């Protein structure tokens, strides 16, 4: 691209990597702007800028709003929170009311602490179960023939074709007292009394594991599928039995896949709303439910915002971990 000073002659306006935007700027915009754009922007940057703009508008801006609201005081008005700063006429100055009470409230009311802990526990156990179920599945898919592999992958993705909500509702029908599972067990005489399956932790685990299993299997599969199988032959050649070879070669090499899968399950599972609401206990809520209740039932936006912020900060750690492993995986792939 030419870096000559002054305006580009009109016949060259249509060329250039930025196309229309640049030619418009050069024709109508200030000279300094168009020169800056010509020298510093590229089509690549523009492509990257679009999703970032999207995130800025629909993630960063709402987040900042929530962050602001979390320091306000609740009040019965519209909007239901007090502004952070106000022009006070008689004092002739702007008065800031910065309220840390919402965060203090989260710590003092045992409901929030126990809900957070319960949510983390449910998410952690579900993640572990997903890993235990998903790893062998991903391994088997990655080691099967090309035709079978595509079919099996298809089966993993197939549930996404029905609505998530419908699939969770289906579990209500399966698990309830006079549901499919109890009827079958009663029918074949394994039990005399129907089991209480629905509205238990068990039901929540079943729902989460069922719903999030693909998010565990897919990253694991994409990792395991890339493994060089001669490494296992080399391990066997050096005297390692198949199990040792798996533990010392396959497992360590699949750690990035395990981390990716676990975080893809753990992060959304902590804030899960639908599954515990439909299948879980009434006496123990998860944090997603608390969040929505605070917003929509209690109309306590400041506390709800504080809950959301704390949840986000708690999840930041695993998210950062995830990014680190993703970067490492990318670097390994480049070699």
């Amino acid at each position, binding site marked *: 691209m030419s870096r000559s000073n002054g305006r580009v002659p009109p016949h060259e306006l249509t060329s250039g990597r930025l196309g229309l935007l640049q030619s418009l700027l050069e024709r109508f915009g200030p000279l300094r702007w168009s020169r800056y754009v010509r020298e510093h922007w590229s089509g690549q940057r523009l492509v990257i800028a679009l999703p970032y703009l999207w995130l800025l508008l629909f993630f960063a801006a709402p987040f900042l709003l929530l962050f602001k609201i979390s320091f306000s005081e609740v009040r019965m008005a519209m909007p239901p929170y007090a502004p952070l700063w106000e022009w006070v006429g008689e004092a002739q100055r702007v008065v800031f009311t910065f309220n840390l009470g919402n965060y203090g409230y989260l710590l003092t009311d045992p409901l929030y602490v126990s809900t957070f802990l319960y949510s983390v526990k449910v998410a952690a156990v579900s993640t572990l179960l997903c890993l235990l179920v998903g790893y062998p599945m991903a391994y088997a898919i990655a080691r099967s023939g090309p035709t079978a592999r595509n079919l099996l992958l298809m089966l993993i993705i197939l549930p996404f074709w029905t609505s998530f909500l419908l699939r969770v509702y289906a579990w209500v029908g399966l698990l309830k007292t006079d549901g499919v599972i109890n009827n079958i067990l009663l029918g074949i005489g394994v039990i005399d009394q129907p089991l209480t399956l629905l509205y238990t932790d068990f039901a929540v685990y079943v729902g989460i594991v069922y719903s999030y299993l693909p998010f565990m299997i897919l990253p694991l599969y994409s990792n395991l599928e890339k493994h060089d199988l*001669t*490494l296992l032959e080399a*391990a066997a*050649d*050096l*005297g*390692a039995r198949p199990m*040792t070879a798996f533990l010392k070669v396959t497992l360590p*090499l699949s750690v990035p896949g395990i981390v990716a899968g676990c975080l893809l399950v753990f992060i959304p599972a902590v804030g899960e709303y639908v599954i515990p609401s439909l299948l879980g206990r009434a006496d123990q809520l998860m944090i997603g439910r608390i969040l929505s209740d605070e917003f929509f039932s209690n109309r306590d936006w400041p506390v709800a915002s504080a809950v959301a912020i704390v949840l986000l900060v708690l999840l930041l750690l695993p998210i950062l971990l995830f990014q680190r492993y993703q970067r490492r995986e990318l670097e390994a792939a480049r070699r």
Partner: protein
Amino acid sequence: MAEKTIDRSNEYVRIESVTKRFGDFTAVDNVSLNVYKGEIFCLLGGSGCGKTTLLRMLAGFETPTTGRILIDGQDMADTPPYQRPVNMMFQSYALFPHMTVAKNVAFGLEQEGLPRAEIDRRVGEMLDIVKLGEFARRKPHQLSGGQRQRVALARALVKRPKLLLLDEPLGALDKKLREHTQFELINLQEQLGVTFIVVTHDQEEAMTLATRIGVMNKGQIVQVGTPTEIYEFPNSRFVADFIGSVNMFDGQLVEDEPGHVRIRCPELDATVFVSHGISAAPDAKVSVAIRPEKIEMSRAAPPGGENRARGVVKEIAYMGDMSVYLVRLDSGRMLRVTIPNTQRHDERIAWDETVHLSWDPSSPVVLTQ
């Protein structure tokens, strides 16, 4: 290199009519072979000739469809790879990418459950032998191709196997490094007294490394012999053509005596006189193979009426140590002649000169199959 004598009393590997089929495809076809202790045996052949499959059957990664493999007198049929007294160096090296060089080398010893101190000592010794001591803590991706090759070698040798299988051990190295490593391999092999079975498609590599070569074609071993035997006395047109370059003429046996034969080749004006007898049916169709370096070229006509030809120089390739001439004979056939460049400035024969070619009666090889 001077050829070592092989102690044939000391058989280490015996392959007994082994066949391996993958579906309809026969990768290895009824191969029988003995390899003796302390040998470097090269399986040489083009891609798809079954040499790697044979090697993988020795390592235990493939099972023979029929036939037996015995290592040190033991039938290996029911022995899984991790229990065979054999180690393999893989073509891709197959180094564990998540382990350091030292960890890679220690892996095999850890499987034997040796005490830590002994493992460390042997790993250290082995790394010194392959001159990688200072790289012990690097990961494979931080090494060059040649260094990786040496790690792979160290990892296979540290277990002190009696038999080491090497799959294209030098294939991934550039030419200079390859030549250097060939001699290192031979030194190591002599130093440690291990039997090597090497798979390669590179005939030069096989000639340099091997005490014996087994030439493979279409799943079968077509000739087994020392490098000299394979080069000077090929037993078939395939071997003569595959090893080195050769001028091959079809001909008819016109005189068959115990001490000599005469052959008439349509593409040569004079008859070919060979100073050794052959076993072939009278009037059999035979081929005469003459190596390019065994042909003499001169401007003056040589004496005698046999073992000679006349032609015009059409191409000259100057290779430094020698020159390759392509000569068109009167019959139109192109002949390849190599002449060593013994002097720096001599009256070399130039393009389009008419030359006379001749060879010694002991040089031609008569091939019947």
